[in-house]
């Protein structure tokens, strides 16, 4: 029964669906990037959307090509993205806090006040030392 299946068409369809999904996530993420009110929200909401979108696109592509080489590359990219994107988000977020990038005024910062205070003090001190 499998002889009747057009594998290419099947792959194309699966690939198309995945790609469209991925692109949709990307697009949404990008719109979010424009819309959301503060840096942290944009950061936490968006970059990850892109990660998912990208993953979907790549998977779609891998399925379409259906080659060992391609698969390994796709997995490599996905792997890299999954390792790197949270790390960079974390690092940038941390840097932002240290650079006193303000939070949205509706953000609940109760548990964070001490930390913020300490960090900013340290940062100011560092600055004074440099000047």
């Amino acid at each position, binding site marked *: 029964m499998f002889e009747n299946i057009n594998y290419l068409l099947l792959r194309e369809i699966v690939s198309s669906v995945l790609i469209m999904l991925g692109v949709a996530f990307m697009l949404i993420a990008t719109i979010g990037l424009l819309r959301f009110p503060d840096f942290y929200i944009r950061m936490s909401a968006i970059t990850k959307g892109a990660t998912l979108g990208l993953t979907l696109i790549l998977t779609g592509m891998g399925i379409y090509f259906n080659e060992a080489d391609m698969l390994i590359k796709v997995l*490599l990219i996905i*792997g*890299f993205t999954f*390792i*790197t994107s949270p*790390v960079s988000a*974390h*690092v940038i977020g*941390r840097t932002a806090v240290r650079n006193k990038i303000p939070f949205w005024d509706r953000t609940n910062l109760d548990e964070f006040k001490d930390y913020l205070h300490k960090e900013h003090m340290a940062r100011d001190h560092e600055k004074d030392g440099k000047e």
Partner: protein
Amino acid sequence: MKTVILATAIRILIPIFLLFSVYTLFRGHNHPGGGFIGGLIGSIAFVFHTMTHGPHHTVDTFLKVNLYGYPRQPNQSRSLYLMRMMRVNVWRRRRQALHQDIRTHMVRIEPISIIATGLLLAASSGLPALLTQQPFMTAFWTDFYLPIIGRPGTPILFDIGVYLLVIGIVLKITFVMSEE
């Protein structure tokens, strides 16, 4: 810029980067890639490490090699001694290191030496041709393929030279700059 998370991620990434860079290097003759691109990929691993831990730590981690050695016995033949030293340094390193006669010598690999080695390899890839009275850099190829590496030949040697050189250069530049 020390964060546990970044440091750990990079620890995981470094071997992948290095593997991938070697892969890119050898693929280069048939696919996009090659010595230069491979070298740069390989060197980012170290750039990351330097950015998170500082250059000294990177040097300590990657560029210091312990060589083991012990004085030659009075009536030990030179070749035997050399054999022994090689064995000590190449395999069974750990176990031999604990032996009481053995002394360690810390050898620092200078990025400059990596650069020089790269240049040497690249330049010397053209020399075999001269020995056979052919123009400089005339390529010699083997008749067989190796997996991943492909067909070995002097141009591949050239590419390896480029690879090493690029790694050496990026290392050197990064070290010097981050010491600033």
